[in-house]
């Protein structure tokens, strides 16, 4: 009798599991659709253009990922708070312009200057500048209870205006800033180490190291500090966090200030990396960063996300866009593809939580 019952149960389980299996497979396929598409695309691209999987191209992808990581790490915090930050790209532009105008050999923006200030001073100035924009964002979100979209839209415009006015200063007349000092350039783009290949060697730039340091720093902040835990608490349930004694306003403001500082560092790296800065530096960077975060599992549902996810997100996005560039896909089409990727990533993200519900 007992054996029969167990057998019947087994039978029922098997029948159920076949149904469940198809459901599980659909879940698996759809929830990981983004990764599957990217893997397939990489396979296709590497067959079409074998150079894509060669060392120079891999180092190129890693360097570009490193350059775009800090901004994504900053925006990740804002998304954990169910917000976002669309002023990020312009802050990158502003800080890149400030760095390029001070650490220069031509003194166009400040004609009275006779020598470039120490790099560390410039770094502090731009971190303060980025932090200030973050403070305005955070304060408005925390105290006025405005949606981050609206707040950061306005700061985006304000910062853009400031960039344009800043570039009109002195004898520069709105032109691209270049002629950076060797010290600044070599600090960022100097060779960290080079990998020998058959046809010479591939240099890994120093900013890869800085990005790794920032990732470790942000991992510690997110996972090992009270502030990090408060951030996740506020993101998942603001009222509950408030009741349990978390200073919600302070946490929100700090997340945005930290994000602002991260954009400033991105700007500092970008100025030297591109070797020039103008009003368009940093344009649309926030779109890439938000897309990378959502692909990496930082959810708009709030209070969910990991640093490792952000790193993977930025890397995957960089791989696919470098690959499409290898196939000479037109830049106009890349915008459409980028938009679709963000939309799909959000839909998949939403699905994960709908199913759980």
């Amino acid at each position, binding site marked *: 009798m007992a054996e029969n019952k167990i057998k019947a149960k087994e039978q029922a389980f098997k029948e159920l599991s076949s149904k469940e299996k198809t459901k599980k497979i659909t879940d698996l396929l759809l929830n990981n659709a983004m990764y599957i598409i990217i893997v397939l695309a990489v396979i296709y691209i590497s067959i079409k253009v074998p150079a894509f999987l060669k060392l120079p191209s891999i180092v190129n992808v890693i360097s570009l990922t490193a350059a775009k990581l800090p901004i994504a790490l900053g925006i990740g915090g804002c998304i954990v708070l169910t917000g976002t930050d669309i002023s990020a790209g312009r802050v990158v532009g502003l800080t890149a312009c400030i760095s390029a105008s001070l650490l220069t050999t031509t003194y166009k923006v400040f004609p009275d200057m006779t020598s470039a200030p120490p790099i560390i001073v410039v770094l502090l100035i731009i971190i303060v500048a980025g932090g200030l924009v973050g403070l305005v964002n955070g304060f408005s979100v925390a105290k006025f209870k405005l949606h981050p979209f609206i707040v950061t839209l306005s700061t985006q415009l304000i910062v853009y205006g400031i960039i344009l006015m800043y570039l009109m200063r002195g004898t520069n007349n709105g032109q691209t800033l270049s002629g950076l000092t060797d010290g600044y350039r070599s600090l960022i783009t100097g060779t960290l180490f080079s990998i020998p290949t058959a046809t010479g060697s591939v240099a890994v730039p120093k900013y890869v190291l800085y990005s790794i340091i920032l990732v470790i720093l942000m991992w510690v902040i997110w996972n090992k500090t009270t502030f990090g835990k408060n951030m996740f608490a506020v993101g998942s349930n603001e009222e509950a966090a408030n009741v349990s004694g978390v200073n919600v306003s302070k946490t929100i403001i700090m997340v945005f200030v930290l994000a602002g500082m991260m954009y400033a560092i991105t700007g500092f790296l970008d100025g030297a990396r591109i070797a020039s800065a103008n009003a368009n530096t940093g344009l649309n960077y926030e779109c890439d960063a938000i897309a990378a975060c959502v692909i990496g599992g930082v959810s708009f549902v709030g209070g969910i996300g990991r640093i490792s996810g952000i790193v993977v997100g930025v890397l995957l996005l960089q791989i696919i866009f470098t690959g499409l560039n290898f196939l000479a896909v037109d830049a106009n089409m890349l915008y459409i593809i980028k938009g*679709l990727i963000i*939309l799909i990533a959000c839909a998949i993200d939403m*699905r994960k939580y709908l199913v759980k*519900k």
Partner: protein
Amino acid sequence: MEEPNQQTTPQLRGLYSKVKISVRTLNIVIVVLIALLIVCMAYGIKKGGFRVSFDTQGGTVVESQIRMYGELLENPTLPTREGFEFDGWYLDPGGTVPWDTDTDTVTESMTLYAKWKEK
């Protein structure tokens, strides 16, 4: 008892708190969007090629070229201009970043500018 329960099954909150869509509809939306993405990529790859245009800055018109990633430019017919001598192609209108048609390879869509020196 409520708190651990909430932690194991997250409710739809945050930006999704007002979402009203069934999983089935969402599945269809995702599949359609993915199909659209693949079509866009395929179209982009098929139509692939970077457009390199030439701005002769007052000289005769030079036709633009479509090149693939990493290719050299086909030697463009050199433009002429009354009273000036052609002094090479440059990446910027000011003529500070030169483009060597023998060694530089195309990696993006771009415009090259002619530089002129007076005869």
